[in-house]
Structure formats: C-alpha cells, structure tokens
C-alpha cells in the first residue's frame, strides 16, 4: 500500500495497529483493548482526512498508483464476457486506448477508455494513458459499430491528456478529437461517460461527450492539468495547489457548474481502498443510467444530448 503525503497520519496509525496486533499474537499480553483504541483512532483519522480533501489532494488521489484503471473496471464488471477489439483500420492499434464488447447483466455495452500502466514497462507500453490520433479513431470506429448494432456505449476516462507528439500532430490529433466530439454529439445510441481518474481537457472530451457524464468522487476534469495551468499562468510549476483550487476541477465543482450529471461515491480512502466495492458501484451506476435512457427514441436521445451541451456556458446579456 502506498501513501500520499497527506495520508501519513493514517500510515502511522496503521503501522501502530499492526504492531500491536502482532504483539498480541506472539505473546500472552492482552492487547485487544489497545488494538480497538487504535482501530477507532484510525477510522476517525481517515474520516477526518478524507472528508476535508482539498482539490489538489483529490488530484493526487486520482493519480494514486494503486487506483484501478479502465481494464480493471472492465474485467471486474464484465468478467469472461468481455471481448477486446483492436485497431483504427488505418494506422495502428493504440495501446493507450482500449475498447471492446462486454455484458453487464444481460445487456451488451461497447466499452472504450484510456488505459494507463501499473509499472514502468506497462506505463511506457500504454504511453501513460495518452492516446494518439489512432486511439481516438479506434474509439470512434468502435462507437460507430455499436451504433450500427444498437449497443449502448460506455466511456471510461482516465488520461493526463492526448499525446502531444510530433507524429501525433502529423496525423491530426486535433482532427481526430474534433471528429469524435462531433460524431458523439449525434450518435444514435446512449452514451454513458464515467471519469474514473484524470480527465484532462480535449484528450478526455475526445471520448467524453455523453447523455450522462459521471465523475467518481476523487477525480478531476478540466481544460488543463493544475501543473500546466500553474506553469502557464503563474510561470512556475510551484502553484499547482492554487491552480487546482482555481480551476474548480473536482466532481463537486463540476456538478455545481452543471458540466457533469452525477457524482459516484468512492469507498473511504479512495477507489483503490476497496476496489471490489468501487467496481460494483460503477457497474450499478451504469446500469441505472442506462435504464433511464434505453427507452428514448434515437431522435429524442440525440436532441436532449445536444440540448444539454447547448446550455453549457455562462455569459451576460
């Protein structure tokens, strides 16, 4: 288990608790009272810390190395029914963008999402969850295929951004994302989007236009990462905490601004603290949202989706 800086009090108590229990097991000393006391203190501390997370702390949690990634969700939710599909039919199979068909209960869904790696080797293999144009084109191909067969789409978003590379520009990173956004506004099947980690700008929105956009509690979604924002506006990387505050990038703030539809609760300590519970919560949320969309005609579905986006923006006069 890895701990973030603000989680250190939890780490200390956890270690104390384990030590005390070990003494109890190894000797005849009765430590059950001590253990209980520490356990209570641990639970109080956790509640206290996680109840009052700052935006920056949530950003840290959204990037926690133990946090579940897209394929973890898909495998847990769909089990054996998941069939991964590859390729953009044009250039490459982008490993930073995954997709395929799977079932939740009796219903088939087309899943797409960015995939991060869990160690140095796989992080490189997945390009840190930063998709190239071919990744967005693969996602669009799968979404169009889902539309053809009237299968709803689920997008799981977790990216520090679309890949800013020379070749990505040559192949039209902007065009690829733009095309996805346009096609997703008028796709004739329900689209449910879930931000499961980082939702960085166009890289996220490129698979992020949907009838329902859900954010897990400890994720962020904005036009830029707090670090980059700090570097541009403060001319220094040091002001990421302030930038995180200023950007209003947390689930709560995004909901307040009516830019997302729903916040999905995470277990105390974050999604990674109880992965199974997180998976179940997300699966249930997807099923629940789909139930509200499945009976809409394609026309009504697209109209109300477009209407939602027409209403975004704040202005005077």
């Amino acid at each position: 288990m890895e701990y973030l800086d603000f989680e250190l009090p939890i780490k200390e108590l956890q270690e104390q608790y384990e030590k005390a229990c070990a003494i109890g097991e190894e000797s005849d000393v009765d430590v059950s009272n001590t253990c209980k006391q520490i356990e209570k203190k641990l639970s109080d501390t956790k509640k206290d810390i996680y109840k009052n997370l700052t935006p920056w702390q949530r950003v840290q949690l959204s990037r926690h190395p133990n946090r579940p990634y897209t394929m973890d969700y898909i495998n847990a939710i769909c089990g054996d029914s998941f069939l991964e599909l590859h390729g953009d039919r044009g250039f490459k199979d982008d490993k930073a963008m995954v997709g395929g068909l799977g079932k939740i209960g009796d219903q088939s869904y087309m899943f797409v999402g960015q995939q991060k790696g869990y160690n140095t080797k796989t992080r490189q293999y997945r390009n840190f969850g930063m998709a190239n144009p071919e990744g967005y084109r693969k996602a669009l191909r799968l979404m169009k295929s889902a539309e053809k067969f009237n299968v709803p789409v689920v997008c799981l978003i977790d990216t520090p951004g679309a890949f800013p590379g020379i070749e990505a520009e040559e192949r039209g990173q902007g065009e690829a994302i733009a095309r996805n956004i346009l096609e997703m506004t008028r796709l004739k099947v329900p689209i449910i989007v879930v931000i499961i980690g980082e939702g960085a700008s166009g890289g996220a929105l490129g698979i992020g236009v949907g009838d329902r956009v859900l954010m897990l509690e400890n994720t962020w979604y904005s036009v830029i990462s707090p670090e980059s924002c700090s570097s541009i506006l403060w001319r220094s990387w040091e002001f990421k905490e302030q930038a995180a505050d200023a950007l209003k990038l947390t689930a709560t703030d995004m909901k307040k601004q009516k830019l997302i539809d729903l916040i999905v609760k995470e277990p105390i300590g974050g999604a990674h603290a109880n992965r199974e519970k997180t998976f179940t919560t997300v699966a249930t949320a997807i099923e629940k949202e789909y139930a509200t969309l499945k009976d809409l005609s394609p026309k009504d579905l697209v109209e109300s989706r477009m209407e939602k986006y027409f209403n975004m923006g704040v202005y005077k006069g």
Partner: protein
Amino acid sequence: MIKNIEIQLNEEDMAWFKRTKKGIQTATEDKKDVPKGLWYKSPTGKVVDAEELERNYYVSPEDGYHVRIGSKEYFEILFDDNKFKELDANLTSKDPLKFVDKKKYTDRLEAAQKKTGLKDAVRTAVGKSMGNDLVIACMDFSFIGGSMGSVVGEKIARAADYALKNNTPFLLISKSGGARMMEAALSLMQLAKTSAKLAQLADAGIPYISLCTDPTTGGTTASFAMLGDINISEPGALIGFAGPRVVKDTTGKDLPDGFQSAEFVLEHGFLDFISHRKDMKRKINLYLDLVLNQPLREKTA
C-alpha cells in the same frame, strides 16, 4: 534353396526394384500438396502424428503452427456436428476470355477440379454454430491458389444475399492469393460485386465477420477481407495487399521481421484480434452474442 530362387528370377521380376524408366513418372497434377502420411512436419521442424494434428484443429501442438486447411476442415470445426447445407454447390467457372498461358485455363480448371475434388475456390454453406444459424463462405487455397474469379465472387455474393434474406450472421474465411488472372477484369470486378453486397448487409445491420487465414493477399484484402464488422485472424497468417516478394523486389528494401504477419497487421490497426483455431468457434459466437445483445451461449466450442 538359395540357388533355386536365383534361378527363378527373370527380367520382369527384376523391374520391381530395378528402375527401367528414367525420370519422375508422376504427373504434376497427380502430386499431393500435403502428403497424406502418418506424420506432419511443421516449418520449425516439429513432427506430429497426423491424427493428433487433426484432433488439435490442425495446429501443431508443440510450436502452435497453424497448418493450412480448407473448407472441409473449417466447416467441420465451425458447424455443430459438421452438419450444414451447402449453397450453390454446382456453380463452375467458364473461360470467357479463352485464356491461355503455359496451359489453357479450361485445362487448369479441370486439373484443379480433379486434384481437389472441388468445383472452385470457395464453398458456401449455412448451418448451426453453437446452436444458431450462421452462413459461412470459405475459400480453398488448394484450388488455383484460392484465386477469385467470377464463381468465387458470385458464390460469396449469393451467400451474403442468403444471410441478408434470412437475417443470419455472415462469416467469410479468406484464404487466397488474390484475383484470378485468367479472368482478368472480370475477376477484378468481383471486388466491387462482393463489396456492394457487403454494403447491403451492413445497411441491414447484419453482422459480417472476416476471418483472414494464411494467406489472405491481393484482391481479397482490397475487398471483403478488410471489410468485416470485425476482422480476425489466426496466429502467423500472411495478410497483405502486395505479397512480400513483390514488395521486396519493388522497393529493394529488406522487409522487417514478421512483415505482413497477422501480428504485424494487428499492431497496425487492421485486425480486431488473433485467435488460436481451437478458440475460434467460441470467440466468433461470443462476438455475435455481444453485438446482437443476446444471451451468451454455453462456452463450449
């Protein structure tokens, strides 16, 4: 006793072990592509018992080499209990161009028919796969390199049409060197004919699966082989438009390792997945259950 036998041998008996006629006597058309022996030797040199090979879906168990097989074997693998109804079984090629190369096209056709027992380079059929109807068109490489002429194009179009009329998913197993030169532009236009039929199938929302097997090259990749709702393949299959020899000769460059292998093609975004032959039936039907949003059938292939 020994002396006795020696006396009985005469010239005619001697011919049994003494070669009287020089050279190879077997006509080319009588030669077999795959020797029907007890053993099969894979390209990496692994030797496998022929019966074991058959039980293992014609995949060499030690090195996973997928031996080239034809429609007979694929139907056996994919249709339940090898039960199916063949479609348009009697369509055969004509020779509209009176084409002659080293041989007359008509002679070539006749020889191929005699050698393979097939009418042309594709067989189409409908049957149950894991309990549900499936139309399969499967090419036979042994028939003039699985080349696509008017008969192949027409049979594929008619099979797709059958799928369309009966609302049945369509699986096309490509195994071809490309278009049939002896039918020239008639052959070329089969690319358009088959693609048009697939467009109708797509508009009707009927799933079309393209299984690219070793080899899928030339005109097949420039038409139906690359047009599946999913394109899938077997390990190590050669898939490409221009064959590796042509590319090498034209560019004068050494080809990268694994050039045009199924794995290479997957990496470059043109395949959805590669599956071992033994899992093929299950995976095809899993895809169909998922995309048609129907209950998953038992996972027994």
